[in-house]
């Protein structure tokens, strides 16, 4: 099925792309979410600004204590980069579980965050790992904390005239670790998350000194489950401590029933996956 007609621009520089953005335009990166929506005519922008030909956006770099993932870094690259696996483990795992091989070859990590699907994988990892979004418009550049970025279903804090040029993810330091796990709609870990959780922990002297846990798939957006983090901090991170903390998974999150599960089922899954992600993050930290 064809999308409705639109004007297509594929600028070779960021400045030109920013200039081409207007009220009825859309940025296209990998097109893995935008094109299906346009084909089903759920969405028909007048102008599509394809950022795929802009140079210099497809790199993963280290900068001080962060890794910087550019707007054109594909899921497949995030998933297989040894650097990301080592210093931002949960994000690499979330990227490796995004869609299928073909989708990972085209879709981008930044695109997944900008799209802000309620059941997407990488937004949860970005929240748990404390990522910062770098957004550029013709007026300048601003940084948005992950915790302020996911506003509602399919709604991020980005303005229509902004491009998410990169994200910065703090590198794991000694004693830190992260993880992501999910139950996919097609069973196992396949497809969007019916429920998914990402966790980041900092271990010190055998106990949990700091933690962040985020959920996806169960509410109207990916969000932090602060009660779980608060409950696990100060404990020894044992199986029991993790389980007790994860029991509070839905205190900060409004669980929404959808085609894939009732509220009761999703509440159960939120706790199960919060515990799994947390245990794995603790294991990865040592």
């Amino acid at each position, binding site marked *: *099925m064809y*999308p409705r007609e*639109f004007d*297509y621009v*594929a600028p070779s520089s960021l400045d030109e792309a920013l200039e081409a953005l207007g009220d009825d335009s859309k940025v296209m990166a990998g097109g893995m979410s935008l*094109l299906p929506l*346009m*084909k089903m005519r759920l969405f028909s922008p007048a102008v599509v600004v394809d950022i*795929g030909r802009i140079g210099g956006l497809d790199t993963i770099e280290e900068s001080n204590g962060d890794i910087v993932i550019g707007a054109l870094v594909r899921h497949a690259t995030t998933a297989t980069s040894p650097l990301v696996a080592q210093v931002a483990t949960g994000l690499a795992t979330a990227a490796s579980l995004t869609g299928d091989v*073909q989708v990972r070859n085209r879709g981008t990590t930044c695109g997944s965050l900008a799209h802000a699907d309620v059941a997407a994988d990488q937004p949860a990892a970005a929240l748990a790992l404390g990522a910062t979004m770098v957004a550029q418009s013709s007026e300048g550049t601003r940084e948005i904390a992950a915790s302020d970025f996911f506003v509602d279903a399919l709604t991020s804090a980005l303005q229509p005239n902004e491009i998410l040029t990169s994200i910065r993810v703090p590198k794991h330091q000694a004693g830190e670790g992260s993880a992501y796990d999910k139950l996919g709609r097609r069973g196992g870990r396949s497809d969007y998350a019916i429920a998914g959780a990402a966790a980041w922990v900092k271990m010190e002297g055998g106990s949990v000194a700091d933690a962040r846990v985020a959920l996806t798939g169960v509410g109207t957006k990916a969000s932090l489950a602060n009660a779980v983090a608060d409950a696990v901090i100060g404990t020894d991170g044992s199986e029991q401590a993790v389980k007790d903390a994860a029991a509070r998974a839905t205190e900060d999150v409004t669980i929404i029933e959808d085609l894939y599960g009732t509220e009761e089922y999703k509440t159960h899954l939120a706790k199960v996956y919060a515990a799994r992600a947390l245990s794995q993050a603790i294991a990865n930290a040592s």
Partner: protein
Amino acid sequence: MTVNGQEVTADVEPRTLLVHFLRENLRLTGTHVGCETGYCGACTIHVDGQPVKSCTMLAAQADGASVTTIEGLAQNGELHPVQEGFWERHGLQCGFCTPGMIMSAAALLAENDNPSEDQIRHGIEGNLCRCTGYHNIVRAVEYAGAKVRGEEPPAPDWEGAS
């Protein structure tokens, strides 16, 4: 863009999907369209060597790229090992999913010519088949892997069955 080794040039409407460009402009109808959502994988082709879904890409996005479709897989009249595997191990029934399935499997073997059954199933996760139950597809890819490695393919499942 280059399609199966041949340079092609055309002016198309921005909304032309790559799969429609291949099927309708170039008459390469081996690449199938099986869905509207990007899930079925029947339209899988290689763009610059990587498997992608040509229904979820604009023709314009492939400007300058090197595209391989199922028609470009056989070389000098010789079937690609994956095509031979599907033939020898009965990896298809209706055949609708087959071109996409073969393109995904060929890409998988180009990266890893000795994948485990798990890796094969993961590698074709983006391709749906409504007929075979996937069993013989996995056997077909195992056959092809052996061929690529220059080994004797495993005997078919039905051999020795009563």
